[in-house]
């Protein structure tokens, strides 16, 4: 039964990727100046609470949220950037304070924060991430897991000067 769900997701994700690829190719002519900034995703800022503390781990952990932060244009990795993460997990709902936490990128611009297992809510297993420190333009991301059984999720930021 799980394979049916997986196949459906893969199909949807696949057709979405084809569509997105086709559309963005039409809308965005190749830009010589390099890497474009990541736009905020729709619904990305839902249940955002400003200023979550930097933590070792959110709750009891068991699930890994990771990603990278780079600068628009030259794509240089950005170290020391604070990324805030929240989701509906086995330990709480999105709007609850203890579901929120933040981490900081390393010298390679990578971040990784352990958090409780994300579960599907509002029809999709998804997480929320924010860059909101002000040096660059604020970006909210809302990545979706390919399957609710996955125990990790990635999101990548390319930030533009504020």
């Amino acid at each position: 039964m799980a394979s049916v769900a997986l196949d459906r997701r893969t199909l949807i994700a696949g057709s979405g990727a084809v569509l997105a690829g086709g559309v963005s190719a039409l809308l965005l002519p190749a830009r010589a100046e390099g890497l474009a900034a990541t736009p905020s995703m729709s619904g990305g800022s839902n249940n955002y609470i400003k200023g979550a503390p930097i933590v070792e781990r959110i709750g009891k952990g068991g699930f890994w949220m990771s990603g990278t932060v780079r600068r628009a244009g030259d794509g240089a990795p950005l170290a020391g950037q604070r990324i805030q993460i929240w989701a509906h997990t086995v330990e709480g709902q999105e709007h609850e304070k203890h579901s929120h936490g933040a981490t900081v990128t390393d010298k390679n611009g990578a971040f990784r924060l352990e958090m409780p297992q994300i579960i599907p809510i509002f029809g999709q297993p998804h997480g929320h991430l924010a860059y909101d420190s002000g040096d660059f333009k604020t970006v909210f991301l809302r990545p979706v897991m390919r399957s609710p059984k996955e125990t990790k999720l990635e999101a990548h930021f390319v930030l533009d000067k504020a």
Partner: protein
Amino acid sequence: MRPARAAAIWAVLTAAIGVPMALAAASDLLAWCGPLYILAGFAGIAALGLVLVQPLLIGGYLPGLSSYRGRRMHRWIGGALALAVVVHVAGLWITSPPDMIDALTYTSPTPFSPFGVTAMWAIFAVAVLAFFRRRLGLRAWRTIHMALAAVIVVGGVVHAMLVEGTMETISKAALCALAAVAATKVMADRLRRGTPRADGNVRQ
């Protein structure tokens, strides 16, 4: 109709709605959800079940129900469907207002939301127009209702299939398929028959 066949039809209908309900009630996800979110989810599943019942009632496919009783029940169940949708939307709104507002304004990132919201408006439209059906005239009412019913079934089925939640995939797909087939059959029959029946369809 032979009693065995009548019993089989009722058994299939009961299973088509009861099995997905029971499997959803056994979902692991419920442990991590609040009571209001769970209520909202089950209101949505109930609404999907009622979308299957509606064409069966109006098409006269349910054994033991006279065509008069079938039509009367169709109206009450229509009201119940609208109410289930209100509970579904209200419960989700209270659980996470920004997500519900995104859905209602057609700005949600989730691909299933516009289908559900469109079906919701079609359900509300039928519910309101039903009060004016005599003034609209039988022919106009039938045409409008059938068009909106098509929107409700397609919107509701696509919405349900794309949602990843407490419902188990196979039983959900079976319920959706039955609802789509039942609605298509009733609509095809009505369109083929052309003019409305002269048996008091709207008088009563």
